[in-house]
């Protein structure tokens, strides 16, 4: 049974691969029902009655509630025409597990939310309709989408998925602690050296020698290593961050990364930084509890941080060297429209919903309720958004940071089919160096080496 299924899936994949290649050229003219991975024309929904579509997502807490609110709004406006049903899939990993499982013979969703690092995999899964295909058919105006955000999901000038929940890393400081330490709370540190200098003043010990407040404390999260690399304008993987042809190796053991990890080891070793694991929830609560005064986190944490019992300040994501001049990569997730086994009406309905989520009003609601960065430039100009930013001036840092970051292959971020594994390997290297005391260069080299085979296997299997 397994063999048959496998062969079937192979055949389908092979067949769809051909369609996917031709989809951009033939878009709009091939209204074929079935497995076509090209965008249907605008009239696909006409005379179809109500089209029900399913959207798999991994949005929890407030984010999930806001998504529900927006979806209800869309369903109300499209009564009798389109009805979107949300299906919560726990987290990004589980969403992809369910997607892969469904590709083997289950019911696929019409739309799914996939994390940034799943982008290359989604393209290779060859079951989705590239957003570009719809954009071309509809002559959809993409100038409202923040170019840095679209940049991540564009490969070869083609936008594959529509960015949705988007975040960026920031440096957060406890302003009260800065003031108490005699530092200027409006001047957050910008480089490793400055963080260290500030941390020396911010670290507080009690009478018995226990540290009550560490100067610095950040989770050993693999995403952060990608960010440091991008800020330095360096490529995270070779060649060209996988943006021009497939990447073949992870570029972990760069001088910059070695310098960074040695600095981090030294910070922890000399008692200036709190020892944290890779779980950002632990890092978040340590900062909120005042255990450390400087931390790194995504923009999404701003809401929770401002509820802490102290003034929170933000700064640009720090640089390894003072001369680093590029900026961070956007993270988050994007929306993929499934084409395999879907008729034109379903594909069209999914696209209509995506377009709704991208509008400046939806994005303003999304941004102000969740703290994610708005995808739409126009969202920042809406009244509701302006007021929100006025209340949370810390967010202005993120806007400025994004706008001052040029789109290059470095700031677009690395593309790998096995990117989730790559991030995990980077995390292991960070843990090995900072927590286990392994030599930084060795840890990074070993982690990169452990990826050689998986990268090759993946690249070979999608040739």
């Amino acid at each position, binding site marked *: 049974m397994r063999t048959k299924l496998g062969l079937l899936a192979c055949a389908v994949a092979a067949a769809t691969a051909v369609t996917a290649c031709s989809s951009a050229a033939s878009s709009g003219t091939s209204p074929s029902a079935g497995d076509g991975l090209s965008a249907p024309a605008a009239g696909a929904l006409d005379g179809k009655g109500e089209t029900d579509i399913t959207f798999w997502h991994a949005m929890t807490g407030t984010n999930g*509630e806001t998504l529900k609110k927006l979806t209800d709004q869309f369903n109300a406006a499209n009564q009798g025409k389109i009805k979107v049903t949300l299906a*919560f899939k726990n987290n990004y990993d589980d969403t992809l597990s369910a997607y892969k499982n*469904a590709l083997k*013979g289950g019911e696929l969703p019409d739309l799914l939310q996939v994390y940034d690092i799943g982008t290359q995999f989604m393209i290779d899964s060859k079951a989705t309709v590239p957003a570009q295909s719809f954009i071309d058919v509809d002559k959809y105006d993409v100038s409202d989408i923040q170019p840095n955000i679209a940049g991540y999901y564009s490969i070869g000038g083609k936008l594959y998925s529509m960015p949705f929940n988007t975040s960026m890393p920031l440096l957060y400081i406890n302003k009260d602690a800065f003031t108490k330490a005699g530092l200027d709370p409006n001047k957050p540190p910008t480089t490793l050296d400055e963080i260290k200098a500030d941390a020396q003043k911010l670290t507080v010990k009690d009478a018995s020698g226990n540290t009550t407040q560490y100067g610095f404390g950040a989770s050993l999260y693999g995403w952060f290593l990608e960010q440091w690399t991008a800020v330095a304008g360096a490529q995270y993987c070779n060649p060209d961050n996988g943006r021009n042809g497939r990447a073949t190796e992870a570029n972990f053991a760069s001088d910059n990364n070695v310098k960074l990890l040695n600095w981090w080891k030294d910070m922890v070793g000399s008692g200036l930084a709190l020892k944290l694991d890779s779980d*950002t929830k632990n890092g978040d609560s340590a900062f909120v509890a005042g255990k450390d005064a400087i931390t790194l986190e995504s923009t*999404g944490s701003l809401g929770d941080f401002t509820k802490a019992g102290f003034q929170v300040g933000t700064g640009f994501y720090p640089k390894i060297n003072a001369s680093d001049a590029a900026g961070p990569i956007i993270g988050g997730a994007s929306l993929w429209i499934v084409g395999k086994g879907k008729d034109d009406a379903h594909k069209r309905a999914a696209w209509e919903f995506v377009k709704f989520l991208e509008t400046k009003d939806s994005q303003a609601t999304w941004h102000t309720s969740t703290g994610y960065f708005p995808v739409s430039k126009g969202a920042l100009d809406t009244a509701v958004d302006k007021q929100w930013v006025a209340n949370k001036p810390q967010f202005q840092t993120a806007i400025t940071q994004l706008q001052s970051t040029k789109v290059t292959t470095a700031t677009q971020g690395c593309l790998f089919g096995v990117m989730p594994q790559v991030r995990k390997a980077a995390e292991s290297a960070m843990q090995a160096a900072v927590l286990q005391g392994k030599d930084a260069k060795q840890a990074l080299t070993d982690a990169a080496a452990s990826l050689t085979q998986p990268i090759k296997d993946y690249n070979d299997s999608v040739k």
Partner: protein
Amino acid sequence: MSRLNRPGPATSAFTYIWLVVAAVVLLFPVLLTALGGFLPSIDLLRQPPNLLGHYTVASYVGALQQTVVPLLPAFGNSLFVGLVIMIAHLVTSCLAAYALVFLRTPLRTPLFWLFLATIMVPYEAIVVPNALFVRSLGIGDSRFALVLPFLANGFGVFLLRQAFRQFPSELRDAATIDGCGHFRFLFTILLPGCRPAIAALAVWSFLQGWNMYFWPLIISSTNNSLNTLQTAVFALRSNDSADPGLLLAGITITLLPTLLLVLFGQRWLVRGFTAGAVK
């Protein structure tokens, strides 16, 4: 040191000190779970957490109001899964254990080993083939799909085999001499006699079903209607940070039925695991 007798005052004092220390250490997490849901993060995120802080029901209201995975239907699903799996385990395990202990089963030993081996099979290794199989039956989106692969259980067979084997053979012999057939012996003498063990298995099986979470996710494709309470708790976690109060409130809600079961099913459990329990 004498056992099962009233001990002397020194031993008593030592006993109480040890038990109180152990209780504080082992039960603090339970206390934190129970109280944390009523506390804002400002009380929780300090060292030590202030358990006498600003009590509020905001976290519970938030947990009950969340709409990503509505709690009530999820609760219903969890209950369905727990109960169906419990009943199925009881039936399949009782019959199989009976055959293993009281019937002249051919290949008894290999069969028992087979049952035992199924306990060792890592769930992760078989979940994907199972999902494909259940889908191919065309029931992928019904509640039945949630429980189908879990109707029989090697551990249940093992547990009841151990219990049945401790059933006094005199009673079995007496029943046989009285002309009591297998069915009558099973239903009128053995099962009532092993009621505690059955109850213990019931509690265990219910907990297994109740705590399941990866399978519902893999098997349900179109909507949320098959989500269980465990998934609902997942939905309470915020993507980028955690409000411990909300999480603890959610955990308490999922724990409530199982805590009650452990508290009030305790009597049955103790008797279930008491050697040679016969009424």
